[in-house]
């Protein structure tokens, strides 16, 4: 079997439903004036809509004496009033919609903003562990669901409650006796709604996770489909997809199956009420205890009364899935953030570039240490080459230096200052970094080169492009430096992307440089260009280079050889060759 265990999505600690609602409430509360205005409008429009059945009841009373005895002036009077009521009610309903849309949009706007700014404050480790698709589904689908729920469900909940209360009062006024019907039906519907809600919540939660697992698998395997095709195992992957697919379908059907009772049953309770009312009403009419118009008004009210109850239960139904969605959003908002800069953190300024690692230990997980008690120093302007077998911990040193991760043990100093005592921003600004993974965003070439340095002149951008030797290519494009780089644009090759990121680094003027296997993507011919440019970039800077190229390593002031998380050797190329240790044998092996 290929793939993850779908159940792992379900077996996480249950978030408290009421807590989720409370947090949602907090978002709403930020815009309390909107809420109050909306409440006012809905009270008025609902009262008007309630007045109408009463008026029509009165009109019926004026009609009911029958042939030749209809009181026309009364009927006309009530009809005009009815039209006015409904007109005002319609206008207010629309105003209410406008306000609620604005409210819910404000809330989703701030929710999306909160999620994104949460993302920006999360440690890099979070992004190493999570799939973009999962986070995207939270920031788009889940928030969207909450949005729908806020803009529609809460209004319904509110207006329905008003209608229920209003209709109830009106009915009491018409006939308290007839009202006894609801003694049967209301408890019935409340009981039913509560029971269903309890049953449905876990089903919706399960559905959420089954769909999440399906989407995760889809994203993963479609991204890797070329490999799957190359190995000709499409059928196995399709078969596995089928498992996720049927899982998701089954859990959707299960929640639908239970949910499908909700609508009709509320309607059922509603219809029971009407049957009972008309039977009882007819008997009361016979006993002269009730007028015909009263029965008519009562039935209209009871529809108005039961309608909202049915709506409330549908809304509760929908709220279940929105709460599940909100839980996922809040779950993200609860992720532990990057540890804050300490209050007295200094701004790292006027950096010379003296770096010291002192007894540093680190592991990505608690049980396995990647770096064990590492100590070394790098003097101002020195070039440090970090070499060692794969998985030895070379990249980890960079991660710690930039504080993408924090050390478990030991200290790192820059110009004598412990890096956790300075602000992250100023620390990171002290470095220029060129990574193996090129990263360009949807924007112009000029924007991509100048990224991170506001107010860079076009000349400077052009100069940087010239130094890395990509200027001719850029100028050959129809829009030159304004050419937009898009995700699916095939106009730019991987190597050219790499050169652009090097040009970006060129513009950055800092005292320390990090190169992580940066040139391995650039073709060998361009490499000569790049290396010349790099040498210029490296001038007067403290450099940390993770490179596999001998030429880079040979020129280094210090080579640090790492194996199994420890520094096994340290020295210049000549010294290490003479020593005849790990480095010497590595060097020899490339000519095998």
């Amino acid at each position, binding site marked *: 079997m*290929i*793939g*993850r265990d779908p159940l792992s999505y379900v077996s996480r600690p249950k978030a408290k439903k009421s807590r989720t609602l409370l947090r949602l409430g907090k978002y709403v509360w930020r815009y309390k004036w909107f809420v109050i205005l909306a409440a006012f409008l809905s009270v008025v429009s609902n009262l008007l809509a309630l007045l109408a059945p009463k008026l029509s009841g009165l009109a*019926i009373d*004026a009609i009911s004496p029958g042939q030749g005895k*209809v009181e026309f002036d009364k*009927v006309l009077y009530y009809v005009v009033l009815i039209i006015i009521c*409904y*007109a005002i009610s*319609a206008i207010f309903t*629309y105003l209410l*919609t406008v306000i609620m849309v*604005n409210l819910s*949009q404000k809330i989703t706007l701030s929710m999306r*903003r909160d999620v994104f700014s949460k993302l*920006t404050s999360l440690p890099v480790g979070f992004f190493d562990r999570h*799939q973009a698709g999962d*986070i995207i589904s939270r920031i*788009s689908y889940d928030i969207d669901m909450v949005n729908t729920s806020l803009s529609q469900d809460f209004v319904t909940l509110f207006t329905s409650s008003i209608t229920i209360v209003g209709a109830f009062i009106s009915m009491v006024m018409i006939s308290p006796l007839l009202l006894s019907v609801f003694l049967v039906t209301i408890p019935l519907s409340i009981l039913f709604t509560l029971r269903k809600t309890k049953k449905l919540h876990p089903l919706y939660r399960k559905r959420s996770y089954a769909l999440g697992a399906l989407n*995760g698998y889809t994203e993963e395997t*479609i*991204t890797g489909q*070329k*490999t799957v*095709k*190359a*190995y000709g*195992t499409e059928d196995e*992957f399709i078969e596995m*997809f089928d498992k996720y*697919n049927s899982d998701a379908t089954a859990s*959707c059907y299960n929640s*639908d199956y239970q949910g*499908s*009772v909700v609508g009709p049953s509320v*309607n059922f309770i509603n219809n*029971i009420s009407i*049957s009972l009312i008309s039977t009882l009403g*007819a*008997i009361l009419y*016979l006993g002269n205890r009730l007028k*015909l118009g009263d029965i*008519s008004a009562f039935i209209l009210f009871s529809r108005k009364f039961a309608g909202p109850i049915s709506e409330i239960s549908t809304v509760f139904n929908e709220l279940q899935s929105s709460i599940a969605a909100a839980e996922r959003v809040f779950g993200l908002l609860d992720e532990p953030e990057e540890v804050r800069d300490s209050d007295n953190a200094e701004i790292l300024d006027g950096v010379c570039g003296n770096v010291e690692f002192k007894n540093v230990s680190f592991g990505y997980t608690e049980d396995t240490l990647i770096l064990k008690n590492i100590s070394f120093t790098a003097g101002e302007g020195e070039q440090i080459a970090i070499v060692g*077998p*794969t998985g030895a911990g070379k990249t980890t040193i960079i991660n710690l230096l930039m504080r*993408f991760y924090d050390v478990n043990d030991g200290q790192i100093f820059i110009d004598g200052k412990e890096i956790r005592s300075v602000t*992250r*921003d100023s620390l*990171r600004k002290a470095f220029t970094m060129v990574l193996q993974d090129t*990263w360009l*965003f949807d924007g112009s070439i000029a924007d991509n080169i100048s990224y*991170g340095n506001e107010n860079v002149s076009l000349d400077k951008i052009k100069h940087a492009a010239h130094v890395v030797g990509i200027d001719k290519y850029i100028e050959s494009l129809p829009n030159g430096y304004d050419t937009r780089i898009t*995700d699916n644009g095939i106009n730019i090759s991987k190597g050219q992307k790499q050169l652009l990121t090097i040009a970006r680094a060129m513009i950055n003027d800092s005292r320390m440089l990090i190169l992580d*296997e940066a040139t*391995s993507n650039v*073709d*060998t*011919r*361009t490499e000569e260009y790049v290396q010349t440019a790099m040498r210029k970039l490296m001038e007067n800077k403290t450099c940390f280079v993770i490179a596999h190229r001998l030429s880079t390593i040979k020129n280094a002031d210090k080579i640090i050889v790492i194996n199994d998380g420890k520094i096994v050797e340290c020295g210049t190329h000549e010294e290490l060759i003479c020593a005849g240790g790990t480095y010497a044998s590595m060097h020899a*092996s490339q000519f095998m």
Partner: protein
Amino acid sequence: MKAIFKYLSGYTSLIVFSMSVKFIGTITELFIPYILQHIIDVIIPMKSIEKILFWGILMLVCALLTFVLNVIANRGASKVANSVIYNVRRDLYGHIFNMSCSEVDHFTVPSLISRISSDTYNVRNMIGMLLRVGIRAPILIIGGIIMTLVLDAVLASILIATVPFIALIIVFLSRYGIPLYSSVQNAVDTLVLKVREFFSGIRVVKALSQVETEKDNFEKINTDLSRRETKATVTLGITNPVITLILNIALAIIIMIGAYRVNEGLSEAGKIIAFMSYFTIITNAVTMINRIFTNYTKGSASAVRIREILSSTSDIKVIPQDHVDTDDYITFSNVSFTYSGLSEGAKTLDGINFSLKRGETLGIIGAIGSGKTTVIQLLLRFYDISEGEIRIDGDDIISIPLKDLRSKIGIVFQNDFLMSATIAENISLGRHLNNENIMKAAKIAHAEEFISQKENGFEYRLESKAANLSGGQKQRILLSRAFAANPELLILDDSSSALDYKTDAMLRKEINSNFKNTTKIVIAQRISSIRHADKILVLENGKMAGYGDHDTLLKSSALYYEIAKTQGEVQ
């Protein structure tokens, strides 16, 4: 939509059943106000409590039937909707895996993913809604109108007079609503792109302290989306109050005219009461239709996106060709190729010739964009060549079924993929390899040692994106995958870039001793990785800039010599 109807047709009997049940359930519902009118106008004057009770119980029976039938029908509807989407998803996924690479390039991977996940979801909602309410709402409206016609044709005609107005509003909705919704969808796409971008560039963003810039950029997109959504909802929000108002005005007019008719003895008060009940039912039904319409708008846009995929047919076909007897295992003769979408003149590969005997190694070296990876993609028939021919074992590759062609191959791509599954599953990749094969391959790839240190060894579960492995460990698992099934042809595309010299050299040794009879193609940036290859192909801008072994090339290819010099391979 046609594509989706085809799927629905597989469930015709269930659909017909659910719809009929729904139909009956709706009719029984419509009887309730009718009975009410009957009680008021006919039974009450008879002053018989027994009869009142009888009709009251009949009403209850109708209510019960309505309930049971609606539940049954709704369950049927959701069965249909879920089953259809199950099939649509299955076919989409299967289709995507059988697409040619140029089609995948055309659609782009993120778009394919969103079609499987969000578009199918929209269609499911649409079908469910159509089946549950699509039949109920029209029946309620038509049935309601018929019932009112039976009660009092004159009063009913007032009701019918509102129809054109409501139709007008629905037309307005479709004219203005759909473009508004698609503009919202575009804004959502932009937002998703931004988040994706941020995700992949997190290190750069943080290194350059650009968090605030990114927040600003996101804020712009976020606000824009909100603005468009507000506009769409506010515009469409006008329909419901207006429709309700129209119906209620009609109701008021009915009371007025009803009064005259009662006065003339042409109608009764009970009828007007029943009218009001029907009005409530019809108003609700119209609101439902309005909701269906919004759902349909979303769903049909998605259905179009789904159909685009399902209607694309793989352009890779197997065409029988003559077999040629040769002792060459692979031959490329005069192969040229242009990616679709590029202009005629810009050939990605132009006039490539080489041949390899069984067990030989070909090294390919050249600049980025010189076409190295394309050579492999053509050999695997991810794309069809424009000119020339490629033969494996004397057979033209266009005559070999894709499965047979690819089953011979073990390959590692650049930035190849690992999934959240166990290490063994990642190596096997669905090929049903036994443990012995997997372990042997891991041993050759020097992966065995670190795997055995993991909890559960080969059953160790990788996280998504293999986040719990280092770059070198990932690479060695990928190599184990390529080694595992005793491939006839082993292809390594720049697979040593994440490995250091020592591991690289060790691997080369292992490959040479373990895969003597396997033909090997190695793409590399470093001359040291390929200098011992039997043949080396030097590419420059899609053309051959040298072909031969290392020593020959140093003399015959200026480009090769230059590369060797830069890398310190010649003095």
